[in-house]
């Protein structure tokens, strides 16, 4: 612990942080451009270009937002949450923890949007905002599970405790999703009525293309956002690290210098 080391360490750190002071890299900038272009074109296709549906009219346009949002949030997001949680419990490194946290946060947002677009769509199509359909119910439960995950992340400031407990919660929640799925499927599946299939199974070509295009676009968008969310979290971590180094230095200064 020589003086030169004390002077040097912060400087070196600052250098590294400056390099990290943006959340983008050449790769993600490219990815971002692609994601935005794809998203914009998907929106354009969905909201303007694609034809209105015979029975639903313009309401069908929500379809191109709703389903991709649901798939990206539900499958991609929760899947990555599980991966991150298991990774953390296995390796105990910040990377996995932050991956899980970022995925969960985005999944929460996407699931909320799924609920929103779904409800908005349900009003014109089913005549109701909400129906106790298995899929809807599953989405609602998933939404609350993700809120629970977030609540744990805000409930403690100790990074290790938070990481450990969140990983357990993430894993339990992800493991629970198939069980919930099964139970709500059986729950309503037994009395299934045919009312919930308003979309004509035979989509016309333009509509089909729009649908797939926005599926892919939203997945790319999700991943792009994930990369950035992860990097923000990583930077926050670095910042906390640096703040910690400063705090340590400051606290050491409290102590009288021993000869």
């Amino acid at each position, binding site marked *: 612990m020589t003086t030169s080391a004390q002077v040097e360490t912060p400087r070196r750190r600052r250098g590294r942080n400056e390099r990290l002071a943006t959340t983008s890299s050449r790769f993600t900038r490219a990815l971002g451009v692609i994601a935005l272009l794809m998203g914009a074109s998907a929106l354009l296709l969905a909201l303007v270009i694609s034809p209105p549906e015979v029975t639903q009219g313009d309401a069908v346009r929500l379809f191109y937002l709703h389903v991709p949002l649901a798939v990206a949030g539900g499958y991609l997001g929760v899947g990555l949450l599980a991966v991150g949680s298991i990774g953390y419990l296995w390796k105990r490194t910040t990377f996995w923890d932050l991956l899980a946290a970022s995925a969960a946060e985005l999944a929460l947002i996407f699931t909320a949007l799924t609920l929103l677009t779904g409800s908005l769509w349900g009003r014109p199509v089913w005549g109701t905002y909400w129906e106790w359909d298995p899929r809807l119910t599953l989405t609602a439960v998933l939404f*609350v599970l993700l809120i629970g995950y977030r609540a*744990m992340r805000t*409930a403690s400031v*100790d990074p290790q405790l938070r990481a450990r*407990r969140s990983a357990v919660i993430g894993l339990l929640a992800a493991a*629970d999703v198939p069980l919930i799925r*099964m*139970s709500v499927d059986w729950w309503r599946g*037994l009395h299934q009525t045919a009312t919930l299939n308003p979309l004509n199974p035979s989509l016309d070509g333009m509509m089909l293309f729009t649908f797939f295009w926005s599926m892919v676009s939203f997945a790319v968008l999700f991943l792009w956002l994930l990369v950035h969310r992860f990097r923000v979290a990583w930077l926050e971590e670095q910042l906390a690290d640096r703040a910690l180094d400063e705090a340590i230095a400051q606290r050491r200064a409290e102590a009288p210098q021993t000869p």
Partner: protein
Amino acid sequence: MDRGGLLMWRDALLVAGKDLRIEFRSKIALNQIAPFALVVLLLFAFALDPDRGFLGEATPGLFWITVLLSTLLVVQRSYAVEAADSGRDSLRLTGLDPAGVFLGKAAAVFVVLALLEVGLAAGVRLMYDTSLRGWPVLVVASLAATTGLVAAGTMYGALAAGLRARETLLPLLFLPVVAPVMIGGTRAFAAALDGSSGEGWRWCGLLITFAVAYVALGMLLFEPLLEDS
């Protein structure tokens, strides 16, 4: 493995014994949680009264909601006991086997909850005038559902323990996860009471899956929870 396995059971017994002894001393479950459960049942009767018709039909659901809320209280109490004097350092310091601690705490909660359910069933039987047909399904479904609830509750109790917001965090984490138990228990009971025990057994299958999954997860994942600082 042998030594570990033996130790696990010894530790489970030790912890369960301690928890049950505390419960026996304070008689919280008997004197307070049981009446609470009955009061909740009564409240439902008020809330749903207008049409006596559907109170009867809704009975299985109300039974399980009441059990769920009681589970919350029993689990809360189980961890309040740990934190009473020092915020849960003790269990960690003992160096007991984590899986053993999990099993022990869960076993104690199970005993209390099972007794509670028996009382509750009697109450339901009287208050809502339900007949208890198809009892094999009822018994199996109750055992499986209770095991699942208890395992999940013990896990989430430990997850929330020691945090300042535990009273509110526990229900938030616990309730959505046990949705399958809620659905399964309700449907199994409804099927059994309707006399269609074939469907009842299918739901029992779901409940058993849940119970097995959560007991296994609990034994595996309790270690990082106890390790916490």
